[in-house]
């Protein structure tokens, strides 16, 4: 155990000081800062766009009422809607930027529903008119004014007030759509984090192993510790290194995008469904271990960096499969395919991390996947260290599948 710790410590300290690591780690925050600078430079235009899209200040709309149902405009709408006697007056106001859109309501409106929308330049505003809830309310309120029961009137303006109840989920705690969204986003982010740190630290593992192999120092190391200890130490040390890098990236991303938002993002689902968060962490750790060991073993097989990386790509691809299947996970988290993937150790961590927040996952899947992962880790470590040991001492030639199998059987 002490030797594993010595190796882990050594790998961490040596690599954390490498210029390559420091540059890579600093690059993401630097790019973020650069992005902010660029954004603030072009800020004028961008902020005008965002303001137009999201600013609470309502746009002024002109109305030419040939039907007569909109004259006078109800007090609630007078601030935003302005009547014009005829189309020419309205167009003049549009030209003078006093209004942003002009609605011309014909006499045949009730039969045809057609309204002419006149706007300057972009047709986007016109297209959005029909979907806008506030415009819809403007029409309904004026047409039904004092004609129907107020409650019914209200329903006609806003026919559906959705209350989410999942078939499997009992009494989803409140918190509204924000909490639901965060419940999904945070574990999804953890899933992404897992894939990222697998790629980052497996890169270091590959490099470290390839370096020790090419510098021939490996034989001295293997005469002091077992392949098992070496692999375990490297996995822990370089895993911590990869995690450090990802955490620095995340911290800088949070720092740049405003700490408050991120804090809310992490805290809200934690309060809503703590078990999802805790299970997410469990899957993260177990998944990381399985992959790191695999990467170490695969790294030892290649004779060059490129060869090792190609081999490793097969496994890092598997980690990403669930992210590709994300659409299915959202629409039906308990799809049989997903349940199968949940039991398979290489896809389990990411699949489960994405399934958990979406629905009440059957307990048997949770227990099963965790048990499979826990069983897989020593198995992968055992097989990995055998392959590792054989691969490390073969120079110049990559071992074939037959030799890998032979190494697993004994020797």
């Amino acid at each position, binding site marked *: 155990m002490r030797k594993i710790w010595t190796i882990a410590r050594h790998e961490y300290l040596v690599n954390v000081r490498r210029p390559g690591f420091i540059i890579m780690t600093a690059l993401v925050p630097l790019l973020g800062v650069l992005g902010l600078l660029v954004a603030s430079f072009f800020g004028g235009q961008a902020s005008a766009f965002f303001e137009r899209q999201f600013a609470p200040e309502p746009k002024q709309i002109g109305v030419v009422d040939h039907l007569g149902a909109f004259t006078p405009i109800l007090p609630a709408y007078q601030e935003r809607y302005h009547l014009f006697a005829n189309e020419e007056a309205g167009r003049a106001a549009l030209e003078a930027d006093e209004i942003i859109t002009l609605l011309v309501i014909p006499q045949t409106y009730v039969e045809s529903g057609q309204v002419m929308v006149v706007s300057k330049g972009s047709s986007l505003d016109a297209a959005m008119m029909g979907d806008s809830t506030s415009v819809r309310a403007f029409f309904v309120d004026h047409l039904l004014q004092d004609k129907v029961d107020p409650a019914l009137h209200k329903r006609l303006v806003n026919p559906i007030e959705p209350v989410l109840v999942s078939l499997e989920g009992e009494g989803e705690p409140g918190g509204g759509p924000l909490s639901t969204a965060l419940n999904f986003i945070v574990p999804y982010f953890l899933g992404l984090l897992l894939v990222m740190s697998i790629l980052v630290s497996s890169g270091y593992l590959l490099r470290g192993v390839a370096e020790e192999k090419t510098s021939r120092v490996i034989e001295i*190391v293997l005469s*002091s*510790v077992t392949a098992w200890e070496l692999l375990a130490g490297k996995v822990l040390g370089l895993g911590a290194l990869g995690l450090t890098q990802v955490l620095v990236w995340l911290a800088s991303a949070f720092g740049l995008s405003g700490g408050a938002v991120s804090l809310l993002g992490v805290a809200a689902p934690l309060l809503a469904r703590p078990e999802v968060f805790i299970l997410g962490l469990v899957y993260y750790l177990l998944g990381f271990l399985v992959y790191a060991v695999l990467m170490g073993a695969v790294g030892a097989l290649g004779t060059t960096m490129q060869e090792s990386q190609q081999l490793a790509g097969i496994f890092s691809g598997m980690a990403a499969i669930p992210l590709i299947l994300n659409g299915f996970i959202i629409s039906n988290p308990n799809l049989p395919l997903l349940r199968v993937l949940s039991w398979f150790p290489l896809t389990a961590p990411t699949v489960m991390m994405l399934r958990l927040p979406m629905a009440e996952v059957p307990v048997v899947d949770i227990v099963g996947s965790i048990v499979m992962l826990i069983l897989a880790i020593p198995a992968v470590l055992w097989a990995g260290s055998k392959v590792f040991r054989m691969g490390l001492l073969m120079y110049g030639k990559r071992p074939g599948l037959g030799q890998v199998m032979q190494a697993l059987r004994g020797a």
Partner: protein
Amino acid sequence: MTQNMLEVRNLVKRYNGFTAVDDLSFEVCEGEIFGLLGPNGAGKTTTTRTVMDIFKPDEGRVQVLGLPPGAAKEHIGYLPEERGLYRDLKVLDVLVYLAELKGTPRSVARQRALAWLERVELADWAGRKVKDLSRGMQQKLQFVASLVHDPQLLILDEPFQGLDPVNVDLLKRLIRELQAEGKTVVLSAHQMNLVEALCDRILLINHGQVVLYGPLDEIKRRYAPHAVRLRTPAALNALPGVTRMERRDGTLTLTLDGTTPQALLQTLVERNVPVEVFEVATAPLEEIFISVVKKEENDA
């Protein structure tokens, strides 16, 4: 020289049907310098790797200090033939890390590493990166790396490779000093003169099998060419039992047949031949090595 430091019994190791080590048995006694010799591909490296627990034997048994190889790692120092160090690390850090892997506490490792760097005249380089060292310096550093953890058994595979004569001499002296301190050394080298100068006993293997095994002087006597070397100012007539007389640099080599060196010396004394030098000729180990290996090849 009583206890067996290393015991190899009927060791067999195969790779994909090729037998690299074939029923090999030998012992290394405590406190001796033991030469492990053989041509390239004879199975030396495979044997040492098995002793170091890097390979598992297919058959047979290996014991180091009475323990299975995996349990004795901390008592063995190993300088492999395929060697290298962490090029981007500092000299002292490399030594301390490698000693730590052998279970030596960091502070102790640091002290010993500094003392050893002093001994091999590399103390000024302790804070420099390994890649800044010359080849010869790296070679010495490798040697030091194999013994900072103070092992009882030292396995040196080609320790003299790439060293200049001054450093060869330094290393020779250090190996003798280590022996004097009670360490056991297994030395594998192709420089037969160095093996002759250092080793007490040798094992010569070829095709993974024992060819010669025993005390060096005994082997040399066994392979003596049955000749004497003689230096005399006098001219020599024919001598009984001497079939051939060869003069080189003022020294005569007399090949004997049907007589002994002792009888020849007696004859010389009887004939009043002034004798300046008289010695029983021995073959250099190199010649023994070549002739034995060639004979093997011819027999095969």
